């Protein structure tokens, strides 16, 4: 079920009413309703893959219980590895099997050997990368004794399958989300209104910005050879806004929906396009994934400690793995490696934590230097996004080669004027709300009712006016 579908517009109020009016007096029933609703939400796409979620839930629940009872270090490690191997095993099979087989064949044929292993026609279960990482975080945290394992199977199932963030995150840590299923939740007016406001802003970013960018981006990326360098730049820039609107929009809807049910999810995007360097960008983009990799991969590898070689190795590993997490394609790996290259000078110069505070905090406008830094960071990320969006490496290469040709200095063949105004509108709103958790949060707090409502209606009308075919969220494919 898509958040931007009529199905969800019917599903959400039904679950909301059942949750707060029918089962509100019993915490276990509330959690059970969340599990059922989440399974319905997931089954809307393909019910067959529910078994995967259920199996993953059962394995990690049992591993958690066993870890609590087990004191023997080797046996504890074996239990942890059972969880890791089963979860990563599913992920590798469904997501990477054909990629490894294809590259295996290519590598062998390079040395003159011809092998013909079978490729399988595998459907990628939606959200597998997200819920796999979420359950893994539980097993690892229990193993590290950071979290007491739960004996409540319903609460654990609800944590794994919680529908607002099941298929595209944010990837919640068990330490943050799981305890919320143990506590009695009471309806809080301010929180619910805030949730609706965040949903509204998420829908705007998805339907108005991302989906409209998608039309132009697809046209340009699918016919790269027909366009001038300047037009390709338009395509690359619009893709940067498409993926931001798409994914941060999804996260806003997920977080807002969770708030309607009394849950607090962590912020997943913190206005990344206002970053002044790549390190800051990665602290603000897909925060739940970046911090997951930081805590469960980067730090165990040694993080920024050790020799220069080790530091460089760790940075490359985390970025390449992060790229590979997005999909079985070399384009994602190169995208990750390119970001590692951007990051390295900052790390080696110990400048990776230079921009911790919010840009131009407490001021209306940034300084010229800040503007230049923001623009240069945006240009670098946009260049990397070309690899992310391209079909394959040669497509990405031809796209970039054409950008850096004489035709860069011509007038773009495509000039999406209305879309540019809408993007500018989004950027202005996000700039003014950059000190909050999401773009329009401050309007809900500081503006007077008539202005606030006029603003909400404007956003709602823009959403309706620019809605058309429901476009899938990009991150569903990951």
């Amino acid at each position, binding site marked *: 079920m898509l958040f931007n579908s009529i*199905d969800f517009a019917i599903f959400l109020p039904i679950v909301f009413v059942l949750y707060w009016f029918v089962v509100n007096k019993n915490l276990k029933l509330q959690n059970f309703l969340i599990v059922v609703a989440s399974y319905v939400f997931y089954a809307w796409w393909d019910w067959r893959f529910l078994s995967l979620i259920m199996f993953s839930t059962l394995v990690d629940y049992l591993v958690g219980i066993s870890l609590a009872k087990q004191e023997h270090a080797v046996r504890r490690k074996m239990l942890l590895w059972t969880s890791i191997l089963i979860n990563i095993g599913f992920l590798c099979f469904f997501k990477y099997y054909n990629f490894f087989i294809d590259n295996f064949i290519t590598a062998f044929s390079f040395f003159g050997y011809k092998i013909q292993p079978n490729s399988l026609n595998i459907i990628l279960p939606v959200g597998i990368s997200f819920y796999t990482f979420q359950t893994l975080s539980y097993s690892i945290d229990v193993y590290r004794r950071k979290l007491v394992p739960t004996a409540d199977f319903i609460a654990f199932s609800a944590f794994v399958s919680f529908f607002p963030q099941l298929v595209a995150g944010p990837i919640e840590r068990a330490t943050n989300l799981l305890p919320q299923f143990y506590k009695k939740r009471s309806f809080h007016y301010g929180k619910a209104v805030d949730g609706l406001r965040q949903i509204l802003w998420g829908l705007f970013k998805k339907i108005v910005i991302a989906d409209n960018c998608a039309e132009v981006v697809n046209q340009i990326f699918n016919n790269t050879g027909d366009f001038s360098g300047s037009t390709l730049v338009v395509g690359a820039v619009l893709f940067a806004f498409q993926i931001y609107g798409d994914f941060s929009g999804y996260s806003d809807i997920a977080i807002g929906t969770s708030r309607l049910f009394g849950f607090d999810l962590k912020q997943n995007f913190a206005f990344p396009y206002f970053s002044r360097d790549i390190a800051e960008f990665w602290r603000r983009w897909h925060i739940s994934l970046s911090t997951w990799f930081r805590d469960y991969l980067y730090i165990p590898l040694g993080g920024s400690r050790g020799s220069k070689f080790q530091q460089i190795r760790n940075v490359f590993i985390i970025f390449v793995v992060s790229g590979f997490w997005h999909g079985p394609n070399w384009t994602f790996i190169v995208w990750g490696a390119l970001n590692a290259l951007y990051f390295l000078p900052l790390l080696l110069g110990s400048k990776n934590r230079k921009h911790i505070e919010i840009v131009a905090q407490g001021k209306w406008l940034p300084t010229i230097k800040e503007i230049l830094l923001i623009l240069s960071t945006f240009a670098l990320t946009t260049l990397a996004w070309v690899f992310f969006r391209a079909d394959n490496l040669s497509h990405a290469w031809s796209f970039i080669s054409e950008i850096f040709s004489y035709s860069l200095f011509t007038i773009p063949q495509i000039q999406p004027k209305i879309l540019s105004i809408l993007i500018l509108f989004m950027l202005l709103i996000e700039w003014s709300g950059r000190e909050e958790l999401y773009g329009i949060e401050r309007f809900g707090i500081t503006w007077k009712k008539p202005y606030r409502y006029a603003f909400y*209606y404007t956003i709602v009308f823009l959403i*309706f*006016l*620019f*809605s*058309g075919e429901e476009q899938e969220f990009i991150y569903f494919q990951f």
Partner: protein
Amino acid sequence: MKKFIKQVFFFTLIFCCLFTCIILTTNIIVNNKADFKISKEKKYVLFGHSQPECAFNDSLISNFKNFSNAGETYFYTFQKIKQILPQNPQIETVFLEFTNNKISIWADKDIWSNKYMRLRYPRYASFMNLEDNLFLMTKNVKGYAKVLPISIKYNLIRMKLNDYFYINKIGGYKYLVRKKTDSILKTMNKTGFSIYPEYQKMSVHEIHYLEKIIQFCKEMNKKVYLVRSPYHKKSFYSQNEEALQLLKKQKFDTIKFLDFKDFPLDNSEYGDLDHLNHKGAKKFSKWFNTLLKKGLLDSINKQQIIDKKI
């Protein structure tokens, strides 16, 4: 909780009211200003789908305007004709394509499927009455909900550009270049001819709207003819021929039927088994023009004259 529900309810209610007002206002404005006027010499008009769209080259037929549009069903033709006839009193004769695939239940999807509704509803929303809107809504409520905002956008763009001229956007002769008949026949020889029992079923809705069109034309004192454009004898669509003849006899016996199905053409004059390419259209249109000039419509045995000429 009560306060929250109340606020959400009123917010939604106000939104629905505003939305309805915008729909009605834009529809009324566009409806009042819509321009469907054609040249004063045009006395014959033709409506249909892709087959007549590719067959009747109206630049070669005197006083004739082809309004056919690929995939158009009688439901949308009805919306179009309601505007064209009152705005063009010079029109004397209306030709309506009446062919095998137009009456099949398969045509239903062209009325209310997401794809076709998105394509046509915004264009004709301003001219549809409540009954037609309810019809679409009951058939595909989700699709209908999705096209409503698109129709507002469509109307707003028209209003912004002050462009209410519809004629060049609602159909016309299509110059088809392709010549795929031989390759299609070759494939068919290998794979065989498929029979689809579902295709044989009639579309109740399409027949209903055809009746409404005929009724409307009569009320406007126009002569109505059902026509069938030429198509290849191997066309798969001909498998409901019996049903078509029966329907013609039962429901439209009083309406004259001009059948050009067997008009002689080479494979190279077809774009595929169902559509004439520009060569075929040229040959057929010139022939049809001569026939019209010789007074086909005034003669008593029209079909006999056609068959004799074919």
